[in-house]
């Protein structure tokens, strides 16, 4: 077992900045400190208005009164799209020691009702844009206590004392088994995740963040909103993603948190239209929630932007690791953040620490835990410098007749490094003699092929794929390669649906 210390992160920023990064116990403690230190600074820009820390605090004090009749630990559902109203409601609920149950706004009314029942919600806060949905929920359960996110009482209510061990939020995740579950995170876990977002780059405080990720996702809530508040930064809320590039041009963010597909898309648009779509002020992209293609790091570096991949889970209050040296080690998800205990057990990454979930709510039995460790389901290795590499998912492991285990993702990574490979899938198949072999299918990147101007693109691709194949250890070499003319089947979240045995 290993535990990461904060010391290792010191060299990535200056001494003054590093000394300001300190652990906090609760959202209530953080918010009190933010209001004291950053009172007049702009914390949120939304819908044409700006909100300073002190203005938000005045409104949070009044909005808490909506929940003054509840007891500490009670649960309040938030059904609010990305907006200032979300920020106000979230702070009001959590600084009173209540637990915010954050629902994705696209849930249908029956699912909203189901969540209210399952989690024993005492109140539900909604934005008026959700009125139709709420009317349908109320038709099923007329006595559900609902509160409008826009209605702020005149009377103020003080924050409560909230301890690190007190529950803070319930977030949704597909979990390590793919089944949707509610993850309960304590205040200490949320704050560790928040502080983790400050490590590994130079300019940490007083940034301009643009929010495009949903706040119902842990990457949006903790790394984007919470770290932005913690660092006295200004968070611009992009209400409609189709306006993202206009918002960027107007707001000029210095830092963004995004998924790799968006980073790739912005890069392609920049090339097409001959200008930096993410703006000239952008210095840092925190990239995660899916594997980051290593080429993105170099491509953004050429534009003067540090793209920093990381690894995290909803169960770990977002960030477990971040890569401060992504240019040198572009295929790593980085170094473990402080207070993260970890071990690799039979190739699987196990985690423990302040940032980890308390439990899956309402799941009586769960095989994700063993001896206090959370089993991530991810296959990983750590190099001699302490850099973490995710090499696949445990449930995807192929056991060959020889007894050797092959992680398809690890083999695919070799082929994905070829520029013309858009996506690939390694799977178990049989040859003509009925022997078990490894097979590979790839989806080519047509735009790259077009540029290469080969007379016989298929022959060229086969030659290059064969060259890569011959570099692999004998037991995991591919016995059959197919170049697909259409995409793989994909899940609703756009992940490749893997072939079943």
């Amino acid at each position, binding site marked *: 077992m290993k535990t990461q210390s904060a010391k290792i992160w010191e060299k990535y920023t200056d001494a003054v900045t590093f000394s300001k990064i300190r652990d906090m116990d609760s959202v209530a403690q953080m918010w009190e400190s933010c209001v004291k230190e950053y009172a007049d600074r702009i914390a949120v820009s939304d819908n044409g208005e700006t909100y300073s820390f002190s203005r938000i605090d005045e409104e949070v004090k009044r909005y808490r009164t909506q929940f003054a009749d509840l007891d500490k630990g009670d649960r309040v559902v938030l059904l609010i799209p990305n907006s200032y109203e979300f920020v106000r409601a979230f702070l009001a609920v959590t600084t009173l020691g209540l637990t915010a149950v954050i629902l994705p706004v696209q849930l249908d009314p029956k699912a909203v009702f189901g969540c209210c029942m399952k989690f024993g919600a005492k109140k539900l806060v909604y934005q008026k844009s959700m009125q139709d949905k709420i009317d349908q929920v109320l038709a099923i359960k007329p006595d559900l206590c609902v509160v409008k996110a826009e209605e702020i009482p005149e009377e103020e209510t003080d924050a409560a004392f909230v301890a690190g061990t007190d529950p803070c939020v319930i977030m949704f995740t597909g979990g390590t088994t793919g089944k949707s579950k509610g993850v309960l995170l304590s205040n200490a876990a949320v704050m560790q995740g928040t502080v983790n977002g400050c490590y590994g780059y130079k300019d940490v405080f007083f940034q301009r963040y643009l929010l495009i990720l949903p706040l119902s996702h842990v990457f949006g809530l903790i790394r984007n909103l919470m770290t932005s508040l913690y660092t006295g930064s200004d968070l611009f809320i992009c209400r*409609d*993603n*189709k306006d*993202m*590039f206009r918002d960027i041009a107007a707001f000029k963010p210095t830092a963004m948190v995004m*998924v790799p*597909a*968006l980073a790739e*898309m912005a890069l*392609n*648009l920049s090339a*097409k*239209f001959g200008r930096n*779509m993410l703006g000239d002020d952008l210095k840092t992209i925190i990239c995660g929630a899916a594997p980051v293609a290593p080429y993105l790091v170099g491509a953004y570096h050429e534009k003067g932007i540090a793209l920093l991949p990381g690894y995290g889970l909803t169960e770990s209050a977002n960030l477990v690791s971040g890569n401060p040296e992504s240019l040198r080690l572009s295929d790593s998800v980085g170094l473990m953040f402080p207070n993260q205990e970890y071990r690799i057990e039979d190739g699987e990454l196990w985690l423990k620490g302040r940032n980890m979930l308390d439990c899956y709510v309402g799941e009586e039995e769960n095989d994700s835990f063993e001896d206090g460790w959370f089993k991530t389901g991810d296959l990983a290795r750590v190099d001699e410098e302490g850099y973490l590499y995710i090499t696949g998912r445990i449930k995807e492991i192929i056991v060959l007749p020889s007894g050797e285990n092959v992680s398809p993702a690890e083999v695919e990574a070799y082929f994905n490094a070829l520029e013309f490979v*858009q*996506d690939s899938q390694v799977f178990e198949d049989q040859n003509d003699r009925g022997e078990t072999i490894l097979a590979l299918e790839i*989806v080519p*990147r*047509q*735009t790259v092929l077009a540029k290469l101007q080969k007379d016989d693109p298929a022959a060229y691709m086969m030659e290059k794929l064969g060259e890569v194949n011959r570099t692999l250890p004998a037991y995991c070499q591919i016995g059959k390669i197919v170049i697909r*003319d*259409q*995409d793989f089947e*994909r899940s609703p979240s*756009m992940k490749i649906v893997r072939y079943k045995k």
Partner: protein
Amino acid sequence: MKREEIREKLKQILFETDDRNADQVRDCSEDSDLRTDLGLSSVGMLYMVFSIEETFGVRFENVSMNDFKTLGDVVDYLENKTEEGKSK
């Protein structure tokens, strides 16, 4: 701009948006569903929106991307927009 011209420009944008489904885009019709037939993800939709705005010199206003189900829906919208532009 003629409807056919709009459609062809759109197909070019769709090809650039996500070239994994190049064959489907090549063979698509105005009835093709942007998400299920042409495989556009939410990020792909964003790419398409921006490319359309730049290419056609229009701006998507008071509409949500969920309002566009098929390629024909986008062609309709752009036909109206480019007509509006001419009459101003």
